């Protein structure tokens, strides 16, 4: 077996193991949390010992834990993620709906962050130890350190009269042509995406800067410079390709945010996404919703990271050794 296929098999093995571990952890993790789904649901004017028992029966929580686990695996094998305790709708539908809201918004935000971050990182590295580098590095560090909810609130206060500040679409509009709907969705996306972009671009700037800076010191870059190649060519063909590995890894890690959403951003903008859904599910101890959402998110993140490993292998064949 070549070292290449050994590497590949190892990575795939880890991914498969990760997915199976998630299936089980997912089930037990939330059940060992103190508090249960029933206590807050039963804390209502009709509350009584009888109500608690009725709810336990309704959700199958009166069975022993192993029985519940078996039910869960059997349902999962049939592709059934269960029914949400709070909305009474199938978890699959709920997760897909939330993902449909989250992914466009986070994707836009992360893309802006990557674009701005990587570009500014390259410029800072090229102009290192100059005023430009200082300005870029300091701005990136300061904004990256600012709490996300603070950035969100500042944007809400500054732009509330110009742009929508809550929800994924205008709740009171019934536009029927696709362009008005699209325009409305995009308008709602601007502030949350911008918040996410501002909150995260700094890490791309700083990682890109230090990765490019490291390659700029290499002999082959000096050689290219000495041969009189223009700056853009040296950056594009010599420095950047060799600096890509940490950047690709960082981008793959962002997949977690793209799919998992951001609880803080989604809360600040009342965004009906997956991060918010998971937060609500934790507070309400809505186990099926929590299990389903986390399962989908984890699988996607594991797969994207596997993809990043493959890309890195292509970028730097030495990785397999």
């Amino acid at each position: 077996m070549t070292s290449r296929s050994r590497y590949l098999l190892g990575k795939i093995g880890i991914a498969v193991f990760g997915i199976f571990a998630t299936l089980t952890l997912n089930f037990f993790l939330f059940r060992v949390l103190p508090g249960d789904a029933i206590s807050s649901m039963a804390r209502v004017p009709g509350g009584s010992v009888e109500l608690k028992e009725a709810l336990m029966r309704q959700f199958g929580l009166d069975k022993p834990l192993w029985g519940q686990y078996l039910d869960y695996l059997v349902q999962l094998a049939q592709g059934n993620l269960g029914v949400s305790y709070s909305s009474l709708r199938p978890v699959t539908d709920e997760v897909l709906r939330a993902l449909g809201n989250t992914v466009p918004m986070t994707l836009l935000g992360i893309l802006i962050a990557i674009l701005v971050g990587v570009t500014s990182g390259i410029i800072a590295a090229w102009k290192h130890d100059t005023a430009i580098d200082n300005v870029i590095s300091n701005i990136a560090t300061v904004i990256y350190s600012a709490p996300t909810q603070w950035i969100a609130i500042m944007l809400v206060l500054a732009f509330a009269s110009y742009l929508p500040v809550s929800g994924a679409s205008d709740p009171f509009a019934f536009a029927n042509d696709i362009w008005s709907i699209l325009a409305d969705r995009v308008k709602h996306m601007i502030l949350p995406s911008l918040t996410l972009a501002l909150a995260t671009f700094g890490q791309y700037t700083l990682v890109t800067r230090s990765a490019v800076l490291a390659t700029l010191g290499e002999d082959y870059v000096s050689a290219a410079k000495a041969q009189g190649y223009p700056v853009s060519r040296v950056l594009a063909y010599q420095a950047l390709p060799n600096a890509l590995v940490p950047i690709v890894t960082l981008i793959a890690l962002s997949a977690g945010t793209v799919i998992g959403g951001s609880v803080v951003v989604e809360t600040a903008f009342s965004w009906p996404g997956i991060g918010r859904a998971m937060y609500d599910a934790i507070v309400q101890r809505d186990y099926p919703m929590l299990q389903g959402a986390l399962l989908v998110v984890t699988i996607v993140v594991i797969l994207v990271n596997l993809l990043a490993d493959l890309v890195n292998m292509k970028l730097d064949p030495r990785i397999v050794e």
Partner: protein
Amino acid sequence: MGYFNHINRLRNISAVAAVLALGVSPAAADAQNGVLRVGTSFSCSSLNPYTTTQSSCLAALRLMYPSLGQASGSEVLPDLATSWSSDDKGAVWTFKLKTGQWSDGKPLTAKDAAFTFNMLLKHVNGPTARRARAIANVEKAEASDDQTLVITFKQPTSNAVGRLAQILIVPEHVWAPLAEGDGAKIATFPNDEPVVAGPFKLSRFAADQVILLEANGDYFGEAPALKGVGIQFFTDSTSMVQALINKQLDLVTPLPVTSVEAAKKAGITVASYPGLRFHSWLFNSSENQKASPEIRDIKLRQAFAHAIDRKKIAEVAYLGFATPGDSMVPKVTGDWSNPKVVPEKFDLDLANKLLDEAGYAKGADGWRTTNGRKMSYKVLIPTNVEGAEGLRALEIVTADFKQIGVELVTEQSDNATIAAAITGPDNTFADSTIAQWGWIPQMDPDFILSVVLCSQIGGLSETAYCNKDYDVLYDAQAKEVDPEKRKQTVWQMQEILERDRPYIVTVQQNNVEAYAPGWSGFIENPIGFLDYTSNRPFMSMKPGN
């Protein structure tokens, strides 16, 4: 037939769509088109009338479904029922009903009402258990003709009409198939396209985002002044308040107290008035709790009550939007609240004296001891419901308690964790001592008085308080149909609670709500604008002054 219904439905939706679309434009005068846009932080995830307990859902459902009556203070105003009377014992109640039409064109009669009550009764130990209190002691419901509903109770029952009026009446032809067998389908029915007969009908529901309602032209009662209602759910109050200020909303409930000044500056009317919600200290009364048995000492609780500066909590922690609390039956319920139960005077010297007399000696380091142990207690607080105000309140008390030689250590978590910590492990109440939490009582005292019953241990009880004499009085008031006699019992129960203090009510919170200019008819409703017992707050709102 089905096809035409569908066309009609589409036409109605596009009519309200036009109106609602106008409503969002900041240029269009908001109140002109008669659509009230409400923003709230109380979310709504399901429109199933028998499983949801969220106040937004219930308030919206109350605008769509008929009920026998609508609460107004402690009274009930006619709705589907035009009049009612009972036999001499107060066990058989006869309601005269209007007839109407469901939104799918089928007739609404007393048979639907009888079906609803019987369905709830049949499954009360299962899918409809959440409505058990409202139909307590009901034996059966019958429609003697299309306009007469007769409800028979197993025994005379206090506030019978008030309880029954809480129930939303659903169409038999839709719900009968769900109620078959064990009725499990009642609890899992999403009800996304409800067949209704109330003043409004659903035009769009997106869980946790928005509910849009349009006026129902076939409503059996007087048509509402509003052409439509939109309720939008916010997870962040900054953006909610900004939406109100920028004319994207007409009314906000509740308005965060920190936004009152900003709203007023923008020309918004802010209503602040006494509400039902109270915040309190609760003491574990269970004998299973062995580490700090002194927490069961009534003298100690009395001393603690004198060391809680309720006025300062109301003014500083709640920014003045609260008043010192007293009885678990709030003063805003009127006659039900015992006027003799008043807040203890804040007096640290007296608290110190009471603790000295009770034998809790102060050591050289200033801390009191008992059984060779420093008097230090963990105070459990559900931060997600008590909020920043609750934490500030606890800080005030902690500082004052230092002066009486008692150490308090705040332990925060979310409500589910705290609920488990209070009652645990396994409902034995063996570990906890003190917690800070609150309740939102109803206008009728029955519910809040039931929280401290022995039978609620394992249910609603968060103190494990159990007093057989109190329970006897509770049963007596629940059977008493003469309000004056019932009041005496209810007052007596409050005196017992004041003596034993399973709870120390610290503050009574105001309802703070705000609405835009161009609207009138706002009523100060103790339950708040989103009322699960009455549609009056919405029905009385009018565009124009």
